[in-house]
């Protein structure tokens, strides 16, 4: 068995989601190779080589991979696939964009968003927004898989000493190009790796009131998230969204403030260790999954918490 992992990286560092994918690969057994496709991405390749349990790093350094365009990266994966039994990527917007394209080029199906490895060809994955868990077995020669990060521990960033091999670019498809991006800049931790998250919902009423959430977040060193309703209403940008179609999170502490608890939101938080719900509506479904519930007006609770923390 041999596993190829498509690493998510920013050319200088390896994104945390990749470390969780390495753990899933280790459970499959066999040699783990990491592919770093980027531009001036030597530093990311070196970082990948240090991850515990990694045997080899392939580094494709080319302008075609500078913006992670799916058309180019998927083709590269396809050209490298020979000899691997499994190809994995994190189930982030990066992996979800590229890997199904690579799977189709290989004429194999993809097993999306796995939460457990039951064997070399058998995996568990959530369906219906996590309201059911399917166990599936693949008959394809190469198993192409995206991995839900919250379901696997992070591999150690240090401890490995894999060789880095520079590989040829597979070229630019020539029909897609990067125009620009608007990335959220924040000093707070990232949602998908934060130990504590405090999220706001429709109950916050407007963008300005999110400052109350931020004040508590700063006291706790927490990441700030939001429900779909808060994002749709324009209170916060899209990348704050926690839930089935946003980010799946599993912090030690998740605080839901002014969030009613639609099933799509609950699907994204239910692996959190401790869930706190603060809502003035005692009938809100969020209370059914919360370890600690506080039925109260968030506009009184949040300032009080900020003061007492």
């Amino acid at each position, binding site marked *: 068995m041999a596993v190829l992992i498509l690493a998510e990286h920013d050319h200088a560092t390896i994104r945390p989601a990749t470390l969780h994918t390495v753990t899933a690969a280790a459970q499959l057994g066999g040699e783990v190779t990491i592919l770093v496709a980027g531009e001036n991405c030597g530093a990311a390749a070196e970082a990948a080589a240090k991850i515990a349990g990694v045997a080899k790093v392939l580094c494709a350094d080319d302008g075609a991979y500078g*913006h992670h*365009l*799916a*058309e180019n990266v*998927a083709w590269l994966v396809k050209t490298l696939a020979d000899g691997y039994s499994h190809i994995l990527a994190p189930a*982030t*917007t990066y992996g*979800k964009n590229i*890997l*199904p*394209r*690579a*799977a*189709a080029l290989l*004429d*194999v*199906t*993809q*097993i*999306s*968003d796995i939460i457990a490895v039951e064997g070399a060809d*058998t995996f568990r994955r*959530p*369906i219906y*927004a996590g309201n*059911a*868990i*399917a*166990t*599936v*077995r*693949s*008959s394809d020669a190469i198993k192409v898989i995206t991995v839900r990060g919250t379901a696997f521990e992070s591999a150690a960033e240090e401890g490995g000493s894999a060789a880095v091999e520079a590989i040829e670019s597979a070229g630019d498809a020539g029909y*897609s*190009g990067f*125009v*620009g*991006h*608007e*990335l959220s800049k924040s000093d707070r931790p990232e949602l998908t790796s934060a130990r504590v998250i405090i999220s706001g919902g429709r109950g916050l009423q407007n963008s300005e009131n999110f400052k109350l959430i931020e004040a508590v977040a700063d006291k706790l060193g927490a990441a700030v998230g939001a429900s779909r309703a808060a994002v*749709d209403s324009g209170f916060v*940008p*899209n*990348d704050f969204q926690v839930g*089935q*179609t946003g980010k799946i999170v599993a912090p030690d*502490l998740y605080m839901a403030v002014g969030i009613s608890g639609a099933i799509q939101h609950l699907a994204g938080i239910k692996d959190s*260790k401790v*869930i706190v719900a603060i809502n003035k509506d*005692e009938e809100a479904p969020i209370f059914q*999954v919360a370890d*600690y519930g*506080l*039925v*109260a007006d968030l506009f009184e*609770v949040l300032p*009080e*918490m900020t003061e*007492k*923390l």
Partner: protein
Amino acid sequence: MKVLVAVKRVIDFNVKVRVKADQSGVETANVKMSMNPFDEIAVEEALRLKEAGTVSEVAVVSAGGPQVQETIRTALAMGADRGIHIPCEGDLEPLAVAKLLKALMEKESPDLVIMGKQAIDDDCNQTGQMLAALANRPQGTFASKLVLSDGKAEVTREIDGGLETVSIDLPAVITTDLRLNEPRYASLPNIMKAKKKPIEEVTPQDLGVDVTPRLETLKVEDPPVRAGGVIVADVDELLDKLKNEAKVI
């Protein structure tokens, strides 16, 4: 310019799904079915392109049993021009659907294919990317904005870090995210009109596609249940519990 929109019939998003006692799947008998919400957004986007004069025809396709014609009718009632039904029985995997759509692309030559980024039943998030790969065309996935000009699509994509914009040559495949638009409701006169719109049948055999699944579902189970906890009286009690009982702050 011609647009092909692919839609899927799924259990309505408001229905709480129930796992069957024999663990073979989820209960679908006597359950309300609807168009996958992301696909409704795809239909809406195509209609807006037509209303803006950019697009001349919107064709809607769905694969599945005879009931998917209802879902196609829903799209026709929203304003799509014609429907294509690919009759299939049993589970269809994204790769099989992508192959059907690729064959249909060759037949129909659309400039744009739009579909939801994922279906809310199997949550795969694969079909659009797979279709783009098989057709050897570019993809604009998780779109929150779409602008067409000069044979190109400028697509703003929702990514984990924020937003990204790419420019892709047409023909291209677009998959929709939640915030691309708000789909319209079909009006009663349009529902009546939709009954007269044509739905053509094209079989997988016509398209030369083998739709045999590659995955076997061994079982489907309920997720572990999270037990509800306690209601605390005030902020002091909450902070005390978090510090001393849960030890998370």
